[in-house]
């Protein structure tokens, strides 16, 4: 195949994915009028998505905070601007590093699991069984999962911020010798509510994107177990790309 043919094929693949996601978003929006997410399934999804993701989010956030502190410390030591550590850390972590890393972890853990679960339900005819029992899979399976991912990604980001702050403070003290009180003062003095809200908006958008992408790829599975594997792989890749595109757009809009 010529290079032009391969390029054309790749463009068509992208169009196919974007088209399928757009149609899926349309189905989700239709299901929201009026909103009829299954209550029991929504609680189940909130528990599974939120509580079980907590340990991995805590670990990720703690180290993300540490990494941010190390990076900031390089310049702090150079310019002896110890009182800027808290600000630099907070700005980078709350606005960017926290939501981005938690989002990618969330996509890898929750999104992949969700695609695999829905894909398996599709190939074992459980989705057809639901439809025959007069249950709309979008109301019963998709809406609860999207709501859970949107809510929990936002909440987990808040919890992650707390642990990132702890990680940053400890690292700054251990690596550069910045007093935790100096760190805290700098943090509270210069990090604005807007920085925190910026991160929350991103987290909510990432949660929504991961929910839509993972559900869409799960329900589109074809071809048995290998099809489930392919869908999980594609779902994680598309979720990651969506996270970066959304991050770019939100950063540009809220700047």
């Amino acid at each position, binding site marked *: 195949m010529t290079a032009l043919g391969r390029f054309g094929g790749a463009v068509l693949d992208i169009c196919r994915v974007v088209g399928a996601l757009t149609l899926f978003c349309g189905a989700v929006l239709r299901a929201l009028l009026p909103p009829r997410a299954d209550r029991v399934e929504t609680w189940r999804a909130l528990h599974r998505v939120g509580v079980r993701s907590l340990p991995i989010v805590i670990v990720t956030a703690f180290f993300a905070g540490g990494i941010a502190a190390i990076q900031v410390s390089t310049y702090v030591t150079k310019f002896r601007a110890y009182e800027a550590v808290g600000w630099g850390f907070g700005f980078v972590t709350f606005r960017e590093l926290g939501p981005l890393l938690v989002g990618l972890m969330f996509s890898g853990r929750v999104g992949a699991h969700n695609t695999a679960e829905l894909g*398996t339900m599709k190939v*074992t*005819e*459980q989705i*057809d*069984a639901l*439809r*025959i*029992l*007069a249950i709309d899979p979008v109301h019963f399976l998709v809406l609860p999962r999207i709501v859970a991912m949107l809510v929990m990604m936002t909440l987990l980001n808040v919890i992650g911020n707390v642990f990132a702050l702890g990680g940053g403070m400890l690292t700054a003290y251990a690596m550069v010798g910045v007093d935790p009180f100096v760190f805290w003062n700098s943090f509270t003095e210069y990090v604005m509510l807007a920085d925190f809200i910026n991160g929350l908006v991103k987290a909510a958008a990432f949660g929504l994107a991961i929910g839509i992408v993972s559900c869409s790829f799960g329900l589109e599975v074809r071809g048995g177990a290998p099809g489930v594997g392919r869908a999980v792989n594609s779902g994680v890749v598309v979720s990651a790309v969506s996270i970066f595109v959304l991050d770019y757009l939100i950063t540009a809009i809220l700047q």
Partner: protein
Amino acid sequence: MIRLEGVCKSFDGVEVLRDVSFAVPARGTLGLVGAGGAGKSLILKLLCGLVRPDRGRVWLGETELGPLSERELMGVRGRIGMIFQNYALFDYLTVADNIGFPLARMQRPAAEIAARVQTRLDQVHLPDIGPRYPRELSGGMKKRVCLARATVHDPPIMLCDDPTAGLDPVTTNRIFRLLKDLQAQNDATAIIVSHETAYLRPICDAIALLDRGRLVFAGPTEAALQHPEVRAFMEAGVRPAQAR
């Protein structure tokens, strides 16, 4: 009454069903036979409205499925009990919750659900497995649980997609007997897709033979056994083309 009129269906340019027409009278039992890939399972999906025909009409009682929206189809599907080839039990629910699921969705009282679930479990000779999960069951047990779930809401139409695939003769016999009992109990109209032709003969009023998407024969069981192609298939599993 279940009726198909001139139904055609293609996937990706491949014609899977060609001009298929047959009818099953109310409270009748049709055995749908044919080699793998003949289009038997597709016919069941057309009857549930899970797949729409490219041409032709599908009727369940007085309702034609073609013009119905997905939301209207939901109402029609409530009248159907379907047994899936791959069980299609919900992995995250216990056996009791699986069987009671249709009733729970109808918002029946918990006590009534529990009583009806236990009755069905007793009928399928699995009285004690309510708290277990589908992953803990054998294939034959899953099939019987699937049968219990499909019939717990007393549907007037039963569609069975190869309900004994991969099961031993004892379990196969038990499942066919159960099917017949539950159908009689519910006064249901049934279509049974199966390769177990020896078991189908005594319980079916009519037989239909499909070959590569084409209906070879549909009629009363006695007449089917006189038809050379059906008889060859029923007796030896010979493809209609080979019987000619």
